[in-house]
């Protein structure tokens, strides 16, 4: 198992403002797998991801990455194992740093050599030619920025990649290009992906297994075939699936709330 999560809890704030965002979830991800986490806003899916990659240190429970306990604060070795691709390619790149600088920084921090060659290779791998290397983020389109975001995550050749809604800010035709890129990279390099999204179609396209989250708990864990054949067991998942398949006036009447 590349990733094992046991009884993860995340609590923010105190007293009146106390929010129990993640309420004891456990799952494990095998090497080379693409694992999906689905949920609506407020379900805690992004909080789980941020805890796993060291961006939130306020968690209780046990996180094992590659057999070792994950540190509270990411250290150098951790960063070489785990990387994340963020949701918003407009907000996650430094506006005053060139693509080259953005890709070079992790190499400098880690003291890795052959930097020019590595940057050129990674840009090629994500489908950007060398003319993009000295551009600033505002000179790139949304899809190109997300390719840079992926290239940045690849620089340290991690084993485990966390993808937080990697295409939700993109047009459908650009989304298709980015999803194809992610599928190809996994095939070529044997990555393990943990993909967080609200879009069941992307899960069905990318993943082998998934968990469905609602208000901080796992509602259901299932293989992706259950999704494709429309046979989820829990009513929450069934409702989510129904709503994802398109507008149906009569079905809206039957909606329940799940807390």
């Amino acid at each position, binding site marked *: 198992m590349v990733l094992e999560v046991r009884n993860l809890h995340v609590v923010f704030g105190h007293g009146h403002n106390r929010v129990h965002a993640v309420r004891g979830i456990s799952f494990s991800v095998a090497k080379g797998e693409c694992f999906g986490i689905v949920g*609506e*806003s407020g379900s805690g899916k992004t909080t789980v991801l941020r805890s796993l990659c060291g961006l939130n240190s306020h968690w209780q429970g046990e996180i094992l990455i590659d057999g070792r306990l994950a540190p509270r604060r990411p250290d150098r070795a951790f960063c070489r194992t785990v990387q994340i691709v963020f949701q918003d390619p407009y907000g996650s790149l430094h506006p005053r740093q060139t693509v080259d600088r953005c890709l070079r920084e992790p190499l400098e921090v880690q003291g890795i050599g052959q930097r020019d060659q590595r940057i050129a290779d990674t840009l090629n791998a994500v489908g950007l030619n060398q003319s993009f290397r000295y551009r600033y983020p505002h000179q790139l389109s949304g899809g190109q920025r997300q390719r840079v975001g992926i290239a940045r995550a690849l620089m340290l050749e991690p084993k485990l990649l966390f993808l937080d809604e990697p295409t939700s800010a993109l047009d459908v*035709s650009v989304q298709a290009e980015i999803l*194809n890129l992610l599928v190809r990279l996994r095939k070529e390099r044997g990555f393990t992906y943990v993909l967080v999204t609200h879009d069941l179609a*992307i899960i069905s396209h990318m993943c082998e297994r998934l968990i469905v989250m609602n208000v901080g708990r796992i509602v259901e864990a299932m293989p992706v075939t259950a999704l494709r054949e429309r046979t989820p067991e829990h009513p929450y998942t069934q409702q989510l699936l129904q709503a994802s398949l398109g507008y*149906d006036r009569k079905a*809206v009447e039957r*909606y329940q709330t799940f807390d």
Partner: protein
Amino acid sequence: MGQPDQPLLRVENLSVRYVTPTGVVDALKKVSFELGREKVGIVGESGSGKSTLGRAILRLIPRPGQVTADRIEFMGRDLKDISESEMRRIRGKQITMILQDPKFSLNPVMTAGDQILEVLSIHGGVRRREGRKRVLDILKAVRIRDPNRVYNAYVHELSGGMGQRVMTAMMVVANPMLLIADEPTSALDVTVRMQVLAIIDDLVTQRGMGLIFISHDLNLVGSFCDRILIMYGGRIVESCGAADLHKVSHPYSRGLLESLPSIEKPKEVLATLKRDPAWLAEA
């Protein structure tokens, strides 16, 4: 819903052009369509001109944008000929527009109820006391469970779905004939999205309104609307009945459909769109 005899809106050769220091941009190029009391979806990617189209109908294109049209006829009147003060009586009363994100498009320092009341006092000549009752009624109509709380709430105290219901209430309270919804549900969770759509659907059907539904989501438009116009580069490249969405023939429309991942029939590799410059030369 079938085609009515007299169309509500008839647009002929509507163009919007921006002349900028770096060149001329044609945001809309000779767009023509008709709309009856039906739900018409306008689909396209970012930059296709779909939002510009909605704004041009309401004459909300800012300078230096130049709007030209042979005709923008709404209920027998040509909107391009009437004065700005007449336009202000139509805008918000007879034609209204729901915007994408309630957090940014509602007034942050006015309670939800007061904002809806403002519409009534400007367009309906309604006094405060009777107005309050009508606002509470319309909040109930958009299925807000506790209208009194929402009346006195500010936008930041409401969830996204609630905020979008408030905006919908504001846009239908004056009984408009035509509702333009610009990505009204893109920021919402799927189940909330379906609930807000059901509210819009019911209001449009019960009151016999026309709806222009602007969206980038092909599947959603296909299941929600009666008719679909597909836009690319400021042009309408194809139009079809919603039921015939899967039969579209233009390479751009086909490309959009095929690039969508599917829940039930996943493909190994998604088709990507090859843009042909010839699409911009047509029509």
